[in-house]
């Protein structure tokens, strides 16, 4: 109280804000960044979409819906996103159930299965998938030889659904598993005690308690797939929304309104899907209402169940690994066409990319490293402002940063292009919009939600009494921050950095729009360009393998850091 009065005498305005001048400055800096590189570009996109010669207009939307091609593209995008959710569900639900209900030795494999797809972006695997499952790919050639028929895995929209489904099912698996393991075992026991068992028990208690986890995962899959640009482009499926927007902007030009209309529709659908899920889940965050946790009662599998489980896992593992195996074969193969396997093997592609493509790798390290750094700095700032100060509008910063989840990379790319195309900065050649600096910023904006959640969680686990103890012993705010807060948050911060770095390394939607010159191109762009031509597939695959290794190591590292942090914390608890 005394300090508040004291501050009130000196700075009445700030005292009313309930924040120190440094906190206000920090808040303003973060807000300026978010406004400049997220809010303005997105609003700019919406503005153009509704802007005619005489002000506000719906003409562009009218044109969009009048065109058969665009209506079909919208329908196709919705169809692909929905069918991907179905495919991902078919894969993920049995796997989640195996590990939740049974004492099952395959649990380790399932956990691994949940990570393998995530380390390889779908566009990297798309070409390899075509070589394995395409009309003249490995599987269909063998099928045709043996049984005389083919399965159109990769024909048109099927290909997009297949590639995205085996990439994104872990989102459902992870969310559903978390929900199941949060169920208090007494929830099931009390139902059994009152006479429920088997199917009734599942229908009345287990299913409703697990549903929120499933819906969270499924809506995420829907949005990710709906927004994805690179996978349909690489599979040569252009009759979808994202490819249409990209093609209009890059071929017709930045002034063509259709790209903006599509952007608005994409954001609207993303928001509707996420909002719908949130609405469905409102008041159903059961995890926090249950006291015990520990998951369902486990039992041993009967032999029939075990056989089914092992066969299911074996098939899933084979399919999930096929893009990885395919890309590896492609990177090591001489020629691979109309044959189940490449004709011969060579290391030449790796030689090619190591001599030709070092620039791309350096660019990726620079951009993604910069983006990761920016993200953790902003993430720490927002987490600190939200949890430790009373700065007005602090939650708005958090919400704005998180809202970037609902903005597809394509839309952010178009917005940044439109906003900063005319701007040039001394020391940067060409437009600011297409510079490496802007790419770094765009990556940072795209990955900020992940880094923010990591920093926020790290700070949340840090009880404020640890800081108060340091202050009570005479340490100032800054010293406390440096010696107590940051060291204890380090695991979370590092995990946030690595996640941002690794996922930005394979980001392609915004990259495709913002890279205009080869010298600025990162790894992901190079993979995309190589993959376009049959001759470039070998080197493209070699780059892809390198990218996968980078992401895999990054994911492992981030996991290790978080794990180390957790174990240190739990040791402290034991010691206390």
């Amino acid at each position, binding site marked *: 109280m005394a300090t508040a009065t004291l501050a009130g005498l000196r700075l009445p305005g700030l005292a009313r804000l309930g924040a120190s001048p440094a906190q206000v400055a920090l808040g303003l800096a973060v807000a300026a960044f978010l406004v400049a590189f997220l809010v303005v570009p997105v609003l700019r996109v919406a503005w153009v979409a509704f802007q005619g010669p005489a002000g506000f207009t719906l003409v562009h939307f009218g044109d969009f819906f009048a065109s058969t091609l665009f209506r079909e593209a919208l329908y196709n995008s919705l169809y692909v996103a929905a069918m991907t959710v179905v495919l991902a569900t078919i894969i993920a639900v049995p796997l989640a159930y195996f590990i939740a209900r049974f004492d099952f030795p395959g649990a380790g494999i399932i956990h691994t299965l949940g990570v393998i797809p995530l380390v390889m972006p779908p566009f990297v695997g798309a070409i390899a998938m075509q070589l394995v499952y395409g009309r003249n790919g490995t599987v269909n050639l063998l099928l045709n030889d043996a049984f005389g028929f083919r399965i159109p895995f990769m024909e048109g929209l099927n290909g997009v659904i297949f590639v995205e489904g085996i990439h994104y099912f872990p989102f459902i698996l992870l969310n559903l598993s978390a929900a199941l393991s949060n169920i208090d075992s007494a929830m099931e*026991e009390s*139902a059994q*005690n*009152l006479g429920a*068992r088997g199917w009734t028990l599942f229908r009345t208690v287990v299913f*409703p*308690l697990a549903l929120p986890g499933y819906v969270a995962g499924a809506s995420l899959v829907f949005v990710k797939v709906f927004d994805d640009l690179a996978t349909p482009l690489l599979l040569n499926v252009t009759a979808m929304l994202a490819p249409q927007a990209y093609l209009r902007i890059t071929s017709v030009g930045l002034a063509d309104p259709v790209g903006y209309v599509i952007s608005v529709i994409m954001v609207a659908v993303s928001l509707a899907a996420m909002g719908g899920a949130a609405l469905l889940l409102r008041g159903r965050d059961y995890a926090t*209402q249950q006291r015990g946790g520990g998951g369902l009662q486990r039992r041993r599998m009967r032999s029939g169940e075990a056989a089914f489980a092992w066969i299911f896992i074996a098939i899933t593992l084979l399919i999930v690994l096929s893009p990885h195996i395919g890309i590896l074969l492609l990177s090591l193969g001489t020629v691979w066409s109309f044959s189940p396997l490449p004709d011969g093997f060579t290391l030449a592609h790796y030689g090619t990319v190591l001599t030709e493509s070092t620039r791309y790798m350096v660019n990726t390290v620079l951009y993604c490293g910069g983006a990761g750094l920016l993200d953790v700095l902003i993430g720490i700032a927002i987490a600190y402002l939200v949890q430790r100060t009373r700065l007005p509008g602090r939650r708005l910063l958090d919400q704005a940063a998180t809202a970037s989840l609902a903005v597809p990379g394509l839309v952010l790319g178009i917005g940044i292009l439109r906003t900063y195309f005319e701007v040039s900065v001394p020391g940067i050649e060409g437009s600011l919009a297409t510079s490496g600096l802007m790419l770094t910023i765009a990556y940072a904006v795209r990955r900020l939600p992940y880094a923010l959640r990591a920093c926020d969680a790290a700070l949340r686990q840090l009880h404020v009494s640890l800081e108060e103890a340091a202050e009570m012993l005479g340490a100032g705010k800054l010293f406390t921050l440096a010696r107590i807060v940051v060291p204890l948050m380090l695991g979370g911060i590092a995990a946030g950095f690595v996640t941002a770095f690794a996922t930005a390394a394979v980001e392609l939607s915004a990259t495709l729009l913002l890279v205009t010159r080869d010298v600025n191109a990162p790894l992901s762009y190079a993979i995309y360009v190589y993959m376009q031509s049959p001759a470039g597939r070998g080197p493209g695959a070699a780059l892809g393998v390198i990218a996968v290794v980078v992401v895999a190591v990054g994911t492992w590292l981030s996991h290790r850091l978080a794990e180390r942090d957790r174990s240190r914390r739990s040791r402290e608890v034991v010691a206390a």
Partner: protein
Amino acid sequence: MTENAIGVAVEDVTFAYGTTVILDRVSLAVPRGEFFAFLGPSGSGKTTLLRLIAGFGQPQRGRIRVGARDVTEAPPWDRNVGMVFQNYALWPHMTVAENVAFGLHRRRVPRPEVVRRVEAALALVGLEGYGGRRPAQLSGGQQQRVALARTVVIEPEVLLLDEPLSNLDAQLRVEMRAELRALQRKTGLTTIFVTHDQEEANAISDRMAVLDGGRIQQVGRPVELYDNPANRFVAGFLGTANLIEGEIVREGAASLFRGPGGIVLPAPGTARTGRTLLALRPQALAIAEEGRPAQFSGEVQRTEFLGGHVRYAITVAGMVFHVDEAHLRGREALPPGTTVRLAADPDQLTFLEP
């Protein structure tokens, strides 16, 4: 006990996880309509025993009967044994009324009757009009009542309560235990109550079993167990006891207890001679006033003012005795260092197996 009068019978039950024996040849019988408590420290096996009665787990040996029926092999859903879980386990996705109706639907009770019985059950626990709420909207005490209503509504043969008061604050705990007792009287349900709090067990139960290390130490009415503990564990677990090792000898017609440091106390003529363990409650010892008879003397080490009485820790021949003196207004406790003479009430001595 005739078949008809049995509420729950546990016969020679042994239960182990792997090589860790949790319950070791436990037997007891709870007559129909009794309010029975399992009392013991954590790890004593009391909750495991309760869960076995509910069907969560299979004993390696022994039988469990509910009423006349042997339920040892029956699954939980086929026992008609109602259990209230320590953390209540209310389903957060259902309303209060849906939670309470759950067991009735499982028993295919017709809908109008379900509605009527749910209302009656909620009224029984004082929650009329709360049917439409969600568990998360209720206080801890209210959640406790819903859990109780959900269980009694199915009219189980036995009501099992697993530390039902442990999640409530002290004030509410005392209120709820009186309500539980009243509810049990009203319904006449055979009830088993698990607790580690001896005061709770004393206050609420007709009879209780004290468990330790997976074995039943003693069964009886609370006052019987307090006054006549069967062994060192029961004497120490139920309240405070001064335990003195010594022996009983006959001198002429009289029996005497001889302890260390020259302590000599009269013993009843029925006491067996030989080594023994004397249990003395703090209120069985008194600081003798000037000129009154006393058996031995010691020195005040500390005092604790506990409101109704003052507890003295007094060293006698190297041992520390706890002695309670009633507190009266204005009376000051004796300061540490004071030498006092102690008198034991000969009617309050309990001799245990050493």
